[in-house]
């Protein structure tokens, strides 16, 4: 598996787009800076800044969309240039292939959220909106790491879909639909969609002010929701890769 993951990284050489997509990690920290700068705020609660900069639109929309596009990028070349048959006769196991892609998505997601965490600290501490405290920074880093890990699992359906299609338009459209569905469905139930389940997990201690939910926080149920979607995604990927020669 390690060999497969290493080769996945080798395949990404000269793909500037994936580095460019990491810039999206700065979007919400920057907008939070602009927002608080507009109100000339100072000495605000760090968690309030972090909520806007790292726990709001980033895990709900930006990161899932970026990861969805990343999944499509990972799968597209091999599908488009009909390379799968060359890989199968190496032989590369079909599920090993799928999970190696997933591990790359997982690492990318963690890197994205760590960049977002660093950007959040920079945009909050340097302008003097919040005082630097190890405790709050540690909380931010921990939650960002959790978001990074969980969101990778949440986009597994997109990875499975991208594995089943030769083109990229349909998986990208489905990424948009999937991401916005997760955002809007939260007001109905947080345990139907993996993206909304993530928000339950990161807000589990109740100390992120302003994150309001329609139901009680139930972390096992949120994890179960993600697990169900992932299990179905793995089955779908196994089925579609078996059919794809």
């Amino acid at each position, binding site marked *: 598996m390690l060999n497969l993951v290493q080769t996945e990284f*080798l395949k990404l*050489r000269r793909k500037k787009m994936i580095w460019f997509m990491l810039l999206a990690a700065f979007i919400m920290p920057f907008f939070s800076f602009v927002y608080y700068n507009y109100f000339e705020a100072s000495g605000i609660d760090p968690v309030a800044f972090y909520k806007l900069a790292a726990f709001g639109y980033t895990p709900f929309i930006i990161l899932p969309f970026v990861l969805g596009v990343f999944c499509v990028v990972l799968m597209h*070349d091999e599908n488009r*240039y*009909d390379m799968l*048959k060359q890989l199968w006769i*190496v032989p590369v196991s079909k599920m090993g292939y799928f999970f190696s892609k997933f591990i790359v998505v997982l690492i990318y997601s963690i890197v994205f959220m760590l960049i977002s965490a660093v950007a959040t600290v920079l945009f909050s501490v340097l302008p003097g909106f919040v005082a630097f405290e190890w405790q709050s920074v540690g909380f931010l880093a921990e939650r960002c790491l959790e978001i990074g890990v969980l969101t990778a699992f949440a986009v597994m359906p997109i990875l499975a879909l991208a594995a089943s299609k030769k083109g990229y338009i349909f998986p990208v459209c489905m990424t948009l639909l999937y991401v916005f569905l997760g955002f809007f469905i939260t007001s109905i139930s947080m345990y139907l969609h993996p993206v909304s389940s993530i928000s339950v997990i990161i807000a589990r201690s109740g100390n992120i002010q302003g994150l309001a939910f329609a139901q009680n926080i139930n972390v096992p149920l949120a994890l179960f929701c993600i697990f169900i979607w992932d299990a179905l995604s793995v089955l779908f990927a196994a089925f579609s890769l078996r059919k794809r020669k």
Partner: protein
Amino acid sequence: MSDYLIETKQLTKTYGDQAAVKDVNLHVKKGRIYGLLGRNGAGKTTIMKMILGLTSITSGEVDVFGQNIKGHEKRIYPRIGAIIETPGFYPNLTGTENLEIFARLRGTAAPNAVKNALKVVGLPYKDKKLFSKYSLGMKQRLGIANAILHDPELLILDEPTNGLDPIGIAEMRDFIKHLSAERGKTILISSHILSEISLLADDIGIIDHGTLLVENTMKVLEKKNRKYILLRISDMPKAMLILEQEFHVTNFDMYDGHTLCIYDTSLDMGAVNKALVMHDVSVISSQLCNDTLEDYFKRITGGEGIA
């Protein structure tokens, strides 16, 4: 243990009601070059895909190295190198980087495996040219380099000369011959170019509309493409009687009721013509013919020729 490295038994592939491959019994012997010849769409690639387990088999069996490939992939695939259709590679990587990925996936131990494979096909090592900028011929060469990278015993090459220029085709032919003669590789090669197969193959299988029409050694096929006398006459039964009784000819074939092929070319044609005319059999034409492999192909496929 069978003598064959590849053996198919009643191999069939259907798509809906349409049969792409019908009851194919293919026998590829160790250390030989087997040429699978057929027109475009005859079923060559489908057979190769079924041999490699890349497409499902409707019915029949495939044995590679005496084993069914299904369930033994990890043991059999490392012994095979293959290119099927136009080989695809990562467009953002160079040829060397692409091969390095496959070498790593295969766990190829030889330190200079990539360099040697590229050298064999005449591509530069550590070149900065990306695969996306390669010509069709270069892509094909890289595909072959990938197939031989891990020094496999068996090579399955689906139209490997596609896109190559005439010099490239000749080089590839020499290279394939060298692999078989010097390094004892067994090669299954498909082509729709008859001259290509006739110059390369030790054994040949002719496939048409999914059916393997002929499978034989090249030597036997060459013998079949011999000289013969072609006679067009008015009365076939009478002509046959005369030939058998007066000239003791038994080795002949009849076509369409008026055409006779006599394979004994030592016959005195003047005497034959005279005897036929004397018995009121009109001789419309009589000529000495020399069948080529292409004529043979036309004859057995019952249609047009091949490139």
